[in-house]
Structure formats: structure tokens, C-alpha cells
């Protein structure tokens, strides 16, 4: 860029700073999500990795059971016998070996309620004042015998306990009282990162936590000067089969890595927000530059007349976009840091206790934000820039010659082709399955983008007639508008520049198309899920851990329920990981004698009771995939390496609750020594027992398991549906952002055209139009544009939603629903959107001084 072009560019941006302000805002929001995603993940990961590094500082070596397949970090391993500790201690070079034991244990607060934590609630074995696991005593002393406990300081405070108080704790086997003899901390912190930690001495822990002389793993420190590799080799030789030796660092890395994966999910959600908001922003940017170019027609033509080349004009407009994008990107990166900080603060307020981290802005964050912010902005400005470069110089004197009248046909053809390609790609993506799910997803996303672009381009053709129709048919409350002068003006203005109306509406269209698509799919999934639940749940009671508690129920609960005379059938639902013919699957374990009465799995062949004879049941889909029938055998490899040939005892049609694979409880117990917990427990009332009496009996047992929640059939169904709804709320949140940007877009366009029509408004005011009427006409125009965009969105979105619904597996979707309510809400909301977007521009127009307005050239 040469100096004069650069000068023109900079001056151009400064002169139009208010006109591009909203554009900058839109880009900022997109970039903020990108940089926020990276800053958040980088910062939180760093601090979590630091915490784990601190925790494992003292651990040179760890011994644990090996797994046959799957992810080392998240596997539910079998425990290690405490006898191994002695074996390891005897080895040369081992200074200290300690059993690491960690089980679910809930603290009961001083008011009798269970302590709710954002993280898990743990009971652990305290391994001494110089323990290897980085835990410290911050007050009092460690628990030294039966009846003693320490709590982490933050949980003790929240539960209302001080050293010396008696604390009730619920363990896997039941509850007990302990004297609080001290407060513990982890590393440098005094909380467990959102978890509650109750520490007992190893013997008490073994008993109370029901560990049966097992520990989760063994932490080992070596003598000073000892060769770690040699010690590890020596330990490896001495260990019984099924155990493995790893370094402390590797163990810490694995654990941190598993948590990092979770944090990446947050990051990816934010990147999703970024993608949607940038796509919508691109329309806004395009629109702004297109309008600015047409407003500067004379100036640009004059430049051409005095000798600016087409390339210089192009460079200038793109340069302006570049300046805008650089400013927006810088602000966006800053805003992203705010986003990251905000999210950490929100989670911490909810009790997550993210270690306080300083924000990390890595080079990657800056590069990605810049590429995205600058790339999107400049790309969106290319078409307006090309159009600007085509302005003939003669337009300096004859502005009416400015833009070669649009080739309507060309636009129609291009729009149709783009729409067509988009539709084809989308269909292939949704219905075909080339190269697995990620390829499929990418293809449908690309298809949808092309489809949106195509429709956006086609919509120019219908913008004028559609605006006319909308201004006629909008319902009664607005009817008088259509006859009044402001009403007529507003509607004419919407028709006057169809291209602008269309591209403004397009931004809203995309947001609302996505909303309609999602709402069709979501309501169908919801309706189907409800239908399936109703058809399959026959249990009278369900017990599960309350919401937000990811730990399972202690297995003692179901054992106690089985003893109740008020109940005729009780079965827990447990889960395990195994490989079936080499594919990793989640397998449910239930009590065969009871499960059939609790859940109707729509058995096609075989019997549910066969589960108790060590057989396996499976859904018809995997049965088809593996080509098995009742009586055939499947090879099952359990996580700990045990391999079994299991006979198929039945095939069922309804997987809503059971999942695809079921085995008997006894099968699972015989294989694995991992501490079991239950997802939920189902129970059926015995004949002749009153439902209220049964519930009283169940709740009496539940008193000993404070985190458990007892639900009857209706409550259970409701809670299952609620879970699904929560997921949907996140998706809708994402889409609301895109709509917010579209509102910005409409406001922006209105503001720009108010500016452009300064003279016209002055004239209207001069001949006697009131400020109020002027505002009304602007508002009416915005409403027409918004309703046009919303209608397009709905017209595009609903078929897309129906297509997705059809493509989903039939086990998932049994009914298809078009959510009429949502659609009506969208339409009403779009009217509000129009009114809101017009507030600023209308106020501005009304503030114009009549004389100034007329004398502006």
C-alpha cells in the first residue's frame, strides 16, 4: 500500500468511526470467544498441571493394576492388595511405600444436611505427616486411630465444623461419627479443588471405606542417590501378575491429562460460539462495507477521475477492513481474557475452586485470534471492495451512473447453484456416512453454510415483494400502520434497497434457521424420549444420586432395599467397560431376577432371568452387527484382562434405559474387584402394599445415604427429561449469541441508512412530519426487515430440522414434532428484535436539526 492510499485508508476509517463501531463490536465478540477459549484452556490447564505436579512431587514411583485396554487415566482399575506394600518396602532402594486409598464419603453438615460439593466427596487414607501425596495438616493433627478424622479446611468451614467437633460421615458401607482432630490441605491450597476430603488413618480408612485390605495404588519414594530405573526394575520383578510400575510424573501427567480433556470441552464449546458468531458477523461486516461504499460513491468516483486506479480503490477499501479488523482483534483478545476470567469466576462461585491462575495469552491464542478476526473481516469486505473498484469515474458527476445495475439473472443463477450444492453436501453429510462422524459433521456444516449463503443471495430477489407482503399481513395491532404516512414510508424504504434489506435479514436468518433446526430436532428427541420412557419404565421407585453428583450410590443401599418386605423386586444398575470382539463397550449389570419387573426392555427372544445364570443380553442392533442369536457366545474382555466366553441369553428391542448390553451382577462381581457403585436402583412395590408405606420404608433407608434421591415413576421420568432439557439450554444459549449479533446488524444497517437519508429526513421534517412519526417509520422498517429474516430462517430451518430428524437412528427418534409454539415465539421475538434494533437509529434521526439536515450534501 502506497503512502497516499494508506493515508486515504486511515482517514477513511477515522471519518467513519461511528459508522464502523458496531462492525468492530461484532468482530470483537467473535474474536473474544476464540481467544477466550484458548486463554481459558491454557490458563486452567497450566494451573491444574501445576497442582498435580506439586502433588506428585514426593512420589518417585507408583504401583497399580494394569488394564487390558482403554484410557489409562480414566480407567476404573481393580485395587491392589495391601500385602504388596510390604513386598515393595522390602526392596533395596525403597525409602517409603504408602497405600493410596480414595473412596466416596459424604460429610454431613452440622445442620444434618449432606455437604454439597462441586467436585467429588472423598474419604482417603492419611499416609502420615510426611505423606508422599502432597497433603498437609494446616490445623490440629492427623487422624491417628478409630473415631478420628480430618477434613479439608474449606469443607470443614462450609459444613460448620471446628476442630474438636463430632462429624458424621457417610461411607460406602454406612455412616459413622468421628471426632474432627485437624484440618488438612492439598499442596498449597486448603481445599481439594472443589472436592471434600475426609482423611482417616489407614486402618480406619480400610474398614470404614470398605476397602477389604485393598488400596487403589501404592506410592513409593526411593532412597537418596538410588537409581530409579534400577529400583523400578527390581519392583517389577517382585510384583505379582497384573500389576505395573510407573513413574510418579507419568501418573501425574495422566491424571492432569484426563482433566485437561474436560477443560478442552469447555474450550470447544466456546469455539463453537466463536464459529457461529463470526459467521453471522461476516454478514454484518459485508453489509457495513457495502453501505459505506455506496455512500461514498461520489468520493470514490472522484478519486478514480483524478487518477486513482481500480486497484488503489480496492486496496483502500480492503485496507479499511484491515484497520477495522486489527482494532477489533486487539479488543477481542482483551475481551477474551475477560471471558476466560469470567468463566473461571462463575465456576468458582459455584464452588469449583479452580486454582487461582494468572491468565496465559500464548502466541497460539494471538495467532488464531488474528487469523480469524482479520481473515473474516477482510474476506467479508472483498466483495464491497471489488464493487467499489468498478465504480466508473463519470459517477463523480453523475452519481446515478454509479453502480452498473445489478444483473439480476446472474445473481439468481449463482444463488441457486450455491443453494443446490449446499443442499447436496448437507444431504450427503446427514444421510450418507463417508469417513466417520467428523467427516460427516464437517460436510453437513459446510453444506449448511453454502445453503445459507445461497439463500442469502436468492433472498435479494424476494426482498421487495416479501417486504410488501409482510407490511400487509402483519397482524391487527399494526394494521393502522400500513395506511399512515410513517407506515408507508417504512415499508417503501424496506423495499427500496432489496439488496440491503436482504443481507441485513440474512444475518438474522442464519441465527433463526439454526434455532428452528435445533428446535425441531430437540422437540422430536424430547417427545421420542418421553414416549420411550413411558413405555419402558415399570419400576415404582428409582433411587439415584442427586443432580450434580457424579459419584455412584454405595452398593450397600440396594442390598438394604432388597431386605425390605414392602418391595418385591429390587435391582441396581451398575456399569463396566469391556471389549466385545475387540470393540470397547459400556456394559450394564443388573439383577436378572428383578430387572424384568422394573424396566420393560421389550424382549424379542430369550429371558431376562438368564442374566443370573451368567448370560449376556443385548439390543437387536448390536445383535445384528455381530450376527448373534440366543445360544451363541460372545468373547468379552474385561478391563482387568479377564477374558470370558459368554452365552447370549436374550435379545431386546428397547435400549432407552438398559443400553445395548446387559450382564448379571454376579458376572461382574466374579470378574472385577474394582469398588462397585450403582448408577441407580429400581424397585417395585410388593403386592398389597400401599405406595405411601413403601415410600416411607425406602426413605427410612435413604436416611443413611444422604446424597441419594428417591423418586417415584413420574418424578424419575421428569428428572430424565430435565437432564435432556439442560443440554438443550446450552445449545440455545449458543444460538442466542448469533441472534444478538444479528440484532447488532439490523441496528447497524438502520443507523447507516438513517445517516444516508439525513437530507430526506430533513425534508420530511421540514414539510411537517413529527419526530414521533419519523421514529415510527424507522421502527416499522426495522420490524419488516426482522420479520423477513425470521421468516426466511424458519422456512430454511424447519426442513433442515426434519432432515436431521429423519437421519437420526430410529432407536433415538420415534416421533417427529414441529414445535409450533417455538415458531410463534420466534416470529414475535423478531418483531421485538426489530423494534429494539431501531431504538438508536430512530432516536438519532429524530434528533437531527431540520436545517442542518437539509444543508448536508
Amino acid at each position: 500500500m502506497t503512502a497516499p492510499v494508506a493515508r486515504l485508508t486511515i482517514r477513511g476509517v477515522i471519518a467513519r468511526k461511528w459508522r464502523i463501531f458496531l462492525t468492530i463490536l461484532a468482530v470483537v465478540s467473535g474474536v473474544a470467544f476464540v481467544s477466550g477459549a484458548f486463554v481459558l484452556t491454557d490458563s486452567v490447564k497450566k494451573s491444574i498441571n501445576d497442582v498435580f505436579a506439586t502433588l506428585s512431587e514426593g512420589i518417585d514411583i507408583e504401583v497399580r493394576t494394569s488394564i487390558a485396554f482403554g484410557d489409562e487415566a480414566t480407567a476404573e482399575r481393580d485395587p491392589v492388595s495391601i500385602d504388596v506394600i510390604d513386598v515393595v518396602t522390602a526392596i533395596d532402594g525403597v525409602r517409603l511405600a504408602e497405600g493410596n486409598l480414595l473412596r466416596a464419603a459424604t460429610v454431613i453438615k452440622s445442620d444434618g444436611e449432606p455437604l454439597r460439593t462441586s467436585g467429588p466427596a472423598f474419604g482417603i487414607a492419611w499416609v502420615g505427616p510426611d505423606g508422599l501425596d502432597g497433603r498437609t495438616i494446616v490445623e490440629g493433627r492427623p487422624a491417628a486411630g478409630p473415631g478420628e478424622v480430618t477434613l479439608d479446611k474449606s469443607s470443614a468451614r462450609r459444613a460448620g465444623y471446628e476442630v474438636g467437633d463430632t462429624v458424621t460421615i457417610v461411607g460406602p458401607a454406612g455412616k459413622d461419627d468421628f471426632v474432627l482432630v485437624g484440618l488438612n490441605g492439598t499442596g498449597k491450597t486448603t481445599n481439594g479443588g472443589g472436592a471434600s476430603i475426609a482423611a482417616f488413618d489407614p486402618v480406619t480408612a480400610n474398614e470404614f471405606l470398605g476397602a477389604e485390605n485393598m488400596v487403589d495404588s501404592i506410592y513409593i519414594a526411593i532412597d537418596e542417590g538410588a537409581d530409579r530405573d534400577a529400583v523400578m526394575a527390581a519392583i517389577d520383578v517382585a510384583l505379582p501378575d497384573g500389576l505395573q510400575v510407573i513413574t510418579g510424573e507419568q501418573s501425574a501427567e495422566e491424571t492432569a491429562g484426563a482433566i485437561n480433556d474436560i477443560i478442552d470441552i469447555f474450550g470447544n464449546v466456546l469455539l463453537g460460539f466463536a464459529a457461529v458468531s463470526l459467521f453471522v458477523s461476516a454478514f454484518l461486516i459485508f453489509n457495513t462495507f457495502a453501505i459505506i461504499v455506496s455512500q461514498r460513491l461520489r468520493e470514490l468516483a472522484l478519486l478514480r477521475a483524478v487518477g486513482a486506479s481500480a486497484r488503489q480503490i480496492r486496496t483502500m477499501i480492503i485496507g479499511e477492513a484491515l484497520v477495522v479488523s486489527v482494532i477489533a482483534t486487539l479488543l477481542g483478545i482483551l475481551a477474551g481474557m475477560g471471558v476466560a476470567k469470567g468463566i473461571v469466576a462463575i465456576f468458582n462461585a459455584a464452588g469449583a475452586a479452580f486454582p487461582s491462575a494468572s491468565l496465559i495469552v500464548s502466541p497460539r491464542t494471538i495467532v488464531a485470534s488474528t487469523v480469524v478476526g482479520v481473515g473474516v473481516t477482510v474476506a467479508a469486505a472483498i466483495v464491497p471492495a471489488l464493487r467499489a473498484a468498478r465504480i466508473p469515474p463519470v459517477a463523480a458527476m453523475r452519481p446515478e451512473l454509479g453502480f452498473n445495475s445489478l444483473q439480476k439473472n446472474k445473481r439468481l443463477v449463482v444463488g441457486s447453484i450455491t443453494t443446490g450444492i449446499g443442499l447436496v453436501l448437507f444431504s450427503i453429510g446427514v444421510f450418507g456416512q463417508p469417513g466417520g462422524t467428523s467427516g460427516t459433521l464437517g460436510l453437513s456444516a459446510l453444506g449448511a453454510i453454502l445453503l445459507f449463503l445461497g439463500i442469502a443471495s436468492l433472498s435479494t430477489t424476494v426482498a421487495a415483494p416479501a417486504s410488501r407482503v409482510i407490511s400487509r399481513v402483519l397482524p391487527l395491532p399494526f394494521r393502522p400502520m400500513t395506511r399512515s404516512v410513517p407506515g408507508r414510508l417504512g415499508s417503501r424504504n424496506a423495499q427500496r434497497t432489496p439488496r440491503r434489506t436482504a443481507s441485513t435479514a440474512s444475518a438474522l436468518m442464519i441465527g433463526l434457521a439454526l434455532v428452528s433446526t435445533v428446535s425441531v430436532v430437540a422437540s422430536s428427541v424430547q417427545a421420542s424420549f418421553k414416549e420411550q420412557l413411558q413405555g419402558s419404565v415399570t419400576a415404582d421407585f428409582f433411587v439415584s444420586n442427586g443432580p450434580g453428583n457424579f459419584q455412584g450410590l454405595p452398593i450397600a443401599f440396594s442390598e438394604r432395599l432388597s431386605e425390605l418386605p414392602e418391595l418385591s423386586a429390587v435391582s441396581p444398575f451398575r456399569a463396566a467397560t469391556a471389549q466385545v470382539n475387540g470393540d470397547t463397550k459400556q456394559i450394564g449389570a443388573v439383577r436378572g431376577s428383578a430387572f424384568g419387573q422394573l424396566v420393560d426392555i421389550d424382549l424379542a427372544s430369550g429371558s431376562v432371568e438368564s442374566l443370573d445364570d451368567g448370560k449376556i443380553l443385548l439390543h437387536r442392533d448390536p445383535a445384528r452387527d455381530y450376527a448373534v442369536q440366543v445360544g451363541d457366545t460372545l468373547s468379552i474382555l474385561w478391563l482387568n484382562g479377564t477374558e470370558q466366553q459368554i452365552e447370549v441369553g436374550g435379545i431386546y428391542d428397547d435400549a432407552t434405559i438398559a443400553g445395548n448390553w446387559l450382564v448379571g451382577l454376579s458376572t461382574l462381581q466374579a470378574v472385577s474387584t474394582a469398588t462397585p457403585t450403582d448408577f441407580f436402583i429400581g424397585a417395585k412395590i410388593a403386592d398389597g402394599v400401599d405406595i405411601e408405606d413403601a415410600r416411607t420404608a425406602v426413605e427410612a433407608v435413604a436416611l443413611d445415604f444422604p446424597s441419594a434421591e428417591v423418586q417415584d415413576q413420574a418424578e424419575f421420568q421428569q428428572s430424565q427429561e430435565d437432564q435432556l432439557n439442560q443440554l438443550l439450554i446450552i445449545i440455545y444459549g449458543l444460538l442466542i449469541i448469533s441472534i444478538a449479533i444479528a440484532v447488532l446488524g439490523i441496528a447497524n444497517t438502520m443507523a447507516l441508512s438513517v445517516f444516508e437519508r439525513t437530507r430526506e429526513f430533513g425534508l420530511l421534517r421540514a414539510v411537517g412530519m413529527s419526530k414521533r412519526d419519523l421514529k415510527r417509520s424507522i421502527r416499522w422498517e426495522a420490524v419488516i426487515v426482522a420479520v423477513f429474516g425470521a421468516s426466511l430462517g424458519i422456512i430454511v430451518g424447519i426442513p433442515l430440522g426434519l432432515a436431521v430428524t429423519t437421519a437420526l437412528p430410529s432407536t433415538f427418534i420415534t416421533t417427529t414434532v414441529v414445535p409450533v409454539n417455538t415458531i410463534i415465539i420466534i416470529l414475535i421475538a423478531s418483531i421485538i428484535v426489530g423494534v429494539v434494533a431501531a431504538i438508536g437509529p430512530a432516536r438519532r434521526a429524530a434528533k437531527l436539526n431540520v436545517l442542518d439536515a437539509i444543508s448536508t450534501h
Partner: protein
Amino acid sequence: MTSLSTAAAGAIDAFKIYGKDDSEVRALDGVTVTFASEKFTAIMGPSGSGKSTLMHCLAGLDSLTSGSITIGDTNLATLNDKELTLTRRSNVGFIFQAYNLIPTLTALENITLPLDLGGTPVDQQWIDTVVDAVGLRSRLNHRPSELSGGQQQRVAVARALASKPRIIFADEPTGNLDSRMGTEILTFMRHAVTDLGQTIVMVTHDPVAASYADRVIFLADGKIVDELDNPTADHVLDRMKRLGS
């Protein structure tokens, strides 16, 4: 002496036709004309007679339906957009009736704009001469919005002169000005031709303005119908009456 009499620009058999068939408008209907170097020529004629059209075509801002335009030795029809741009930049200057200046640039920046766009080094002495001649020294750092209409027009004249073009076209440059300011601009244009050796073609409706020129060409319905050398205002008025406008 020979170089003085060469043509700075010319049109041969120029036709400019808008619309088709019934709605056809012949804005230029076979115009052949040459403009001598270092002369001040005025173009007059009734409204709609094709004056602006002729000028736009001569200046390479617009293209002919048929016929040819030459600037210096170059036939404009043979140039592509890029070459046309270069020709305008270095061989042609403009003064319009209004909207002459880029609002975001200062007076001086507007004056040197054609040079800057071409990356041509600024001949400071010449710029000083021009600036002093139009009397804008004290206003050079002002934006157009801070200048009066007359001052804006003077900046436009200075810009037209800045690159020492072969020819300057001015379309009613005084149309928006009061008579005192108009006189100022016309005197200066005269000065630019006589003393600075520039070539100017000016469209005007005003016989007094035309009297500053060396020669007046009369246009009616897209054709040249008359011309007059060394005009006075009275002569011009006389001819106009005769042409019935």
C-alpha cells in the same frame, strides 16, 4: 512555434447515444473538434445539448458509442482501464461544479492527490507557484468542510494544475459561486493559460465567463453549430440569442 499549435485533445466523429429505438437520445451526434495547446476554450449551449457528455468523453471518464478521442497523440479508445487511469492521472486535470474534493484530506493533500496516487515526485516549486497563484497559502491544512465554496473551487483548480496536465477540463466551475468569486476563479484560469502555459476547456452557461476564453464553441442537440474566436460577453450573448436558446 509548431509545438504551440499542436492539438492538446480532439474528437473525431464522436457519437454518444443513450437508450434504444424510440427512447434513443443522441447526446453527441457526430462531433469533430480539436483543442489547441495553451489555449482557453469555452463550450456553450442550451441545457441538454451534450456539453457535459462531450467533456466526460474527452476526459476519458466516459466512453463514446462511436468515433474517437485523442489526448495528445493517444487514441483513448485503444486504452484499457489501467492505461486510462494513468492518462487521467498525468495528462488530464478536472474541475467540477461541486464535490471536487475528498472530504477526509486537507487542502494540500487534495492538491497533490493525483501526484501522490501516481507516486510522482512533487515539484515543490510548481506547487508553490500554483498555491500562491490561487492564494491558498494560509488554508493548506484545512479540511474541505472548513473552506468556503470559492476556496474549495480554488483548491480544485490548484489540483487540476498540480500535475501539469496536457489539458484541464472544467464543467461549470463557477456555476455555484457568486460573481465575485467566479471572477476570481476565471481570472486565475486565464492566468494559468496565458502565463503558465496550461490548456483549459470549460463548459459554461455564462457569457461573461465565456469571454475569458480564447475561443467559444456552441453546441446544440449534440452537434457543433457555431464557434467564435476572441469572444466578448456581448458577442457571445448575441450568438446565443441567434441560436435561440
